[in-house]
């Protein structure tokens, strides 16, 4: 292994700032995906439990597609498809966000659905006889209990998502992975990968701590 960065503080610092910029893009993909896919997943979960077959069936098909094909393929497909169906130019970054959002919404939808369905019927019945409306029941009685129950599976998805963001590099979005790849090929040294590994570890370490914190916050009842 040839050492080209770790023995040259100036070069290392330059690499590091480049990689940090990439990590910033990685974080943007991460947060934007969560911000859109969590609410969308909740809507899909509701639709998936709809009494109407016309709502239910297309949604199960959507979930099936999202969970049964490679995310990498979905990203590339959407990246090439969007310019052909949309009348305006779509930035590659937003094409990737779109792909991540619809993919993760499908996974979240299934998690939320099983969470909602695990709440005993007695909770709905108690709310109904107390006069809560359907909306109040969901918002104030069911949802808080669902949040606690889905915390662990959602945390798993969050950690997977941080690693999945690297797939953005398949369409040359300049995320942490893309920067690392470029630096490795231009320097013929694998040190940039080492830096990338460290940065991913830091990101996931932080995410894990946040999930633990949320878990503690929810542990005031059983």
């Amino acid at each position, binding site marked *: 292994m040839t050492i080209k960065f770790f023995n040259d503080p100036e070069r290392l610092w330059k690499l590091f700032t480049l990689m940090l910029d990439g990590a910033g893009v990685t974080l943007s993909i991460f947060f934007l995906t969560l911000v859109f896919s969590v609410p969308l997943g909740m809507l899909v979960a509701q639709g998936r439990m709809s009494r109407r077959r016309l709502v239910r069936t297309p949604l199960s098909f959507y979930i099936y597609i999202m969970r049964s094909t490679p995310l990498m393929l979905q990203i590339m497909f959407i990246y090439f498809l969007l310019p052909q169906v949309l009348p305006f130019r779509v930035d590659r970054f937003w094409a990737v966000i779109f792909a991540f959002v619809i993919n993760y919404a499908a996974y979240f939808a299934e998690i939320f659905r099983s969470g909602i369905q695990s709440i*005993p019927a*007695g*909770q709905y*019945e*108690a709310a*109904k*006889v*107390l*006069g*809560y409306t359907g909306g*109040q029941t969901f918002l*104030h*009685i069911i949802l*808080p*209990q669902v949040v*606690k129950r889905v915390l662990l599976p959602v945390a798993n998805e969050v950690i997977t998502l941080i690693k999945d963001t690297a797939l953005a590099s398949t369409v040359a979005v300049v995320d942490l992975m893309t920067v690392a790849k470029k630096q490795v090929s231009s320097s013929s040294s694998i040190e940039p990968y080492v830096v990338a590994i460290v940065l991913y570890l830091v990101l996931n370490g932080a995410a894990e701590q946040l999930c633990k914190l949320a878990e503690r916050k929810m542990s*005031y*009842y*059983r």
Partner: protein
Amino acid sequence: MLCATDIHKGFDGLGVLRGIDLNVEKGEVVALIGPSGSGKSTLLRCLNQLETVDSGTIVLDDITLCRTRGGKLTYADPATLRRITLKMGMVFQSYNLFPHMSVMQNLTDAPMRVRRLPRAQATERARELLAKVGLSDKADQYPYQLSGGQQQRVAIARALCMDPEILCFDEPTSALDPELTQEVLGVMRELARERMTMLVVTHEMGFARDVADRVVFMEDGLIVEEGPPEQIFHSDNPRTRQFVGGN
């Protein structure tokens, strides 16, 4: 006050209620007894709008919940149904407290959210009722920290916080051991003394005998016999006698 006439209800073609007539007067305590599967819970659930009837008429305080005329069943409009909901309280066998809320929140959330009471007023009423069920010191606990009997007493207080005109109980003590059963029955006795209108499905024959003004014996979706406890517990009807004798 509560008047149900000719209630029919079936599940998948199987008749569970096959023509029930039931009246409850204001201030009256009615005990509903009968073997398992006779349709007691189903009847309560129809009255509480947790199930819809197949046919029959239910009137509460001159407000019609549903009516059947010329073989055609019509339910009241949603606003009326809601008004009736607010007049009826229900205590379940499995308590169904909200686990993510403290005892105090369980008692004040519906009054504040549903009846739009100010917090101070809801809290004051909740404290009164907690004192009445003997749980003043548990206001800040969560349901999982309470015994079954304590949870059921909180559930009774929660129902009372809505100031219902009639309170229905579906086997409120059958998940409890004898000692805890007594604490819950004690609260119900107290309510009966205060002339709270109650309709109680129960297997506690002692309670039915001592507390109820009237006992209704149901079997196979029909009311076999009803009357004051002395009559039911010394019945000439062989089915009634066999049931109460065996209990």
